[in-house]
């Protein structure tokens, strides 16, 4: 279902015609680092990866070094699989073939603290088609994806868009609460707030959309991140996303399915 903010957009633009933006310097406190754990198992064979990084101060650069020395395991049906550190702070294995319907339990031991999480891989939902569509007001190109939501079960989705291999940073997260069992057309709207031409969709560009089916706790993570964690001043209560990992860290552990479609934007 299109978000209401899409309908607002033209209004806000017209109201804020005189609005001006400038980069300012804000004195932000530093805080002691907290672990950020990202764990993913997909239904692609042999894809199971956990990366561990840390928070850093706002003034620092955007490189987030990995954290080494953790003991990481994933358990499924009593079978415990250790993940080896294959890069700094990156732990992976190709011994697990993620299966929809299975529940996976993550355990990370790091500096004497144990972090645990559990995620159940949903059944996959593929994309019927994707096509280029125009924004509501104006001529900007977006991608609309079409998929058939399975009736009678709760489904949670995350979509990731790549334009010529560049990942769009906007989060596309949805569920089927009001769309159960329907053919859903979902336009992947985003605001190019950094004015980066590489993010826009031009004729001739190759666009790929990855469709992830995720479980409810992971959906909660991404949707709360989208609402309150992206740095937008429009949120009345910015906060860290709701994690499905126990033990006092940031992050998520997601057993997810992935389906993709690619198109080349026609030269109008």
């Amino acid at each position, binding site marked *: 279902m299109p978000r209401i903010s899409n309908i607002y957009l033209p209004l806000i633009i017209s109201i804020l015609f005189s609005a001006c933006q400038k980069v300012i310097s804000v004195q932000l406190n530093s805080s002691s680092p907290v672990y950020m754990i990202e764990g993913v198992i997909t239904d692609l064979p042999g894809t199971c990866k956990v990366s561990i990084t840390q928070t850093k101060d706002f003034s620092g650069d955007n490189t987030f070094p990995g954290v080494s020395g953790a003991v990481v395991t994933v358990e499924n049906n009593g079978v415990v699989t250790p993940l080896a550190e294959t890069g700094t702070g990156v732990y992976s294995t190709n011994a697990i073939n993620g299966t929809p319907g299975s529940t996976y339990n993550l355990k990370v031991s790091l500096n004497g603290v144990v972090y645990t999480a559990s995620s159940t891989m949903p059944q996959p939902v593929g994309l019927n088609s994707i096509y280029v569509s125009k924004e509501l007001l104006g001529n900007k190109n977006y991608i609309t994806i079409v998929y058939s939501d399975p009736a009678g079960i709760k489904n949670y989705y995350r979509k990731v868009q790549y334009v010529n291999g560049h990942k769009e940073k906007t989060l596309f997260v949805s569920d089927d609460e009001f769309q159960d069992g329907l053919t859903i057309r979902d336009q992947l709207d985003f605001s190019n707030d950094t004015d980066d031409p590489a993010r826009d969709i031009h004729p001739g560009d190759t666009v790929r959309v990855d469709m992830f089916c995720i479980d409810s706790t992971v959906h909660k993570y991404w949707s709360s991140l989208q609402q309150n964690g992206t*740095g937008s001043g429009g949120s009345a209560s910015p906060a860290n996303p709701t994690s499905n990992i126990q033990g006092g860290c940031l992050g998520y552990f997601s057993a997810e399915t992935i389906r993709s479609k690619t198109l080349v934007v026609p030269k109008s």
Partner: protein
Amino acid sequence: MVSLLAIAVSPFAQKSRAQTPEEIKISLELSHVSLATALHRIEALTPFKFLAKAEDIEREQDILLSVKDQPVSKVLQILFKGRNIQYRQIGINILLKKGQETGKKTAGTSFVSSTPAKTDEKYTVSGTIRSARTGETILGATIRVADPPGGVTSNEYGFYSVTLPAGDHQLEISAVGFASQTLPISLAGNVVMNIRLNEEAKDLQEVTVTASSATRSLTSTQMGLEKINIKETKNIPVLFGERDVMKTIQLLPGIKSAGDGNSGFYVRGGSADQNLILLDEATVYNASHLLGFFSTFNSDAIKNVSVYKGDMPAQYGGRLASAVDIKMNDGNNKDLGVSGGVGLISARLNIEGPIQQDRSSFLISGRRTYADVFLKLSSDTTVNRSRLYFYDLNAKANYAFGSKDRLYLSGYFGRDVLSQSNLAGLNWGNSTATLRWNHLFNSRLFSNTSLIYSNFDYKIFVHENGNDFTIFSQIRDWNWKEELQWYAGSKHTIQTGINGIFHTIRPGEITSSGKDAGVNSSILPRRYSVESAVYATDTWKPSGRLSLTYGLRVSAFSILGKGDYYNFDTNGNVTDTMHYRSGQVVKTYLNPEPRIAASYQLDQSSSLKASYTRNSQYLHLVTNSTTSSPTDKWIASTNVVKPEISDQWSAGYYKNLSEDRYELSVETYYKRMQNQIDYRNGANIFTNAPIETQLLYGIGRAYGIEWLLKKKTGRFTGWLSYTLSRTERKINAINNDQWYNARQDRTHDIAIVGIYQLNKKWTLSANWVFYTGDAVTFPNGKYTADGEVYFYYTNRNGYRMPNYHRLDLGATCQLKKHKKFSSELAFSLYNAYGRKNAYQIDFRQGKDNPNTTEAVQTSLFTFVPSISYNFKF
């Protein structure tokens, strides 16, 4: 606009028993002077002051006069002979008027009923106070009596009742924007005296806005009250030239703006939904247009506004922080009048006139924005097929049945419409209707019965890209009220009433069209409830110096089926479900809300006051955005969502300085709040799941001190307001269960407003505001997720937005007046020194260097000039 010019008005000048023009004798020699000069000379020799319309006397020149030791009455007869000018005396004032008036008519049309005088008997003077020009009732006018000292104010229908010992009295009647009058009365029985006040007069030569005495009562026990007469706001500069009383009240202490250019406001640390906004008694649930930049109140239709900052009288209930009581004009009951205006944003038209001459009237007032007219001019089809407008329509009529009954019917309809071709749109608005019946049982017992309808709804439609559906949401009230005001004697005024509201909330209903609509039809369960109250208060004056008001409001809230209600665990998961049949009571909350207030008059010019009030609130607005939106959700209390309760203690000192030219008030308050509500982190705002699964609960506290220094007389008027305050919340599971500053916590809040009447033509104005930036949550760090940078937060509202300040300038030019037609041009410049105030601060990955992060400030309004044209005939 008729401007009344007076030679002088000084209501306090003469307190002794008025003398008559027959008693005072003068000698005077005049040759070839103007009538104005002649009158000035008489003023110099006698206690009398003359009041007249400028156009009635200014053409009278070339006066020749020679009198010796003649009574003033005789002198006036000579002066006015052949000039068709009538006069009548009211106290020390002598009113001059052209025309056929017999002169017998006095300002008060009175008749004496019943019983002859007995010396120790007490009698009641009662009646209605109205504007002499338009017949509009005057609310909150003060009627003062010197001996025994005391006074009353007119109620919200202009009715007053005062009980006095038999004998001679002087009634001094004053009201904001009107010239004071002193009426002599000889009481030998109950008297009905309907009073007509002339609009505030201006001095013939000096253009002085005269002393409207007693704009506030030092003796009244009411605290935390700001009264605004809509006329007073006329010259204050505003954004886009759109006069907005909701923005004017933000310049008063304790009332804070919800943001740059915003008509929303916070009172004494309360949130926006804790303000009860009433238009002719009907609740207005969403009092703003266009994301809050304009209020729904068209100034043309509004008479006055009273803001009670938490110390609400017992007849108001249902909100914690304030009651904003807005009264619509009744309409001119003398002449048909048309007024209107054109501004940058909107055009306005107002028509009013009598139904029964001098007895009843009607009013229709409309406003519509026309930004979309310009959209149509665009050659771009996506733009020219867009719609973006709002309108307001106010209508009111009143009708008198005999001298004791009057019916009022008033309505408001307003809507915002926003759509993009036929593809998608959103429209929302309020409609209210109020039917009221005033009945006078006798001169001391006034009754009002009201039947009120109030509705707010929004509709969203989408017909594009394979999505085809509408969403509808509504909150609707049916409200019945009965109130009695009993002027029990010279020492007691008793107010009692009963009230019942039936609320229906439809949280959201999706209707999809066609098979391939992309959305399923679905209805979030409707919620039904009855909010009722019974109350009584007594205002008691045990002595001339001490007044006490004490009362009790008992409110009850019954949640009714049909519907499912739930119990939850601490994580917000449903533990069990209870089904209720239609009409079955789910739960009833009962809250006694006591209140007590006292005032002690220290001397002629100063007093002390203190009060305590408890309020409860059963409807709550939950929002997770910094911008108000029509889709913000009103929810009713449930078995789990408890009523909000507040207790407010306040104390104040009030002083009139330099012969009442300045008014100083200092008020301080402490308020504690229970059962405050906030969304859980990551709450799903539009969901079929019970709303309680998305909420958290806690407590709040707010305290502060408010200073207000006001100058209401002279060419220069204005005020200086300063608030020092704090407001905090403590919500379970937010900020590690520690106290944190509420977003609207602003330590300092200053407003300076000045209006200068340069000459008859030009009025200049300026206001300057300063406030501490909102308490906001900024990141303390950052991290990476799926290759992107996100922000790490530790404390809720641990940072501040930059301080806000702004200067606005305004000028009003009165254009040349014709016989019946007058017009003016109003210029304003919002944010005159172009301060870039922060509306929002976003954090993002660096635009130029993606390996960094940066803070970006958005500012809205810098240098917004505007011009508007207003007319009246």
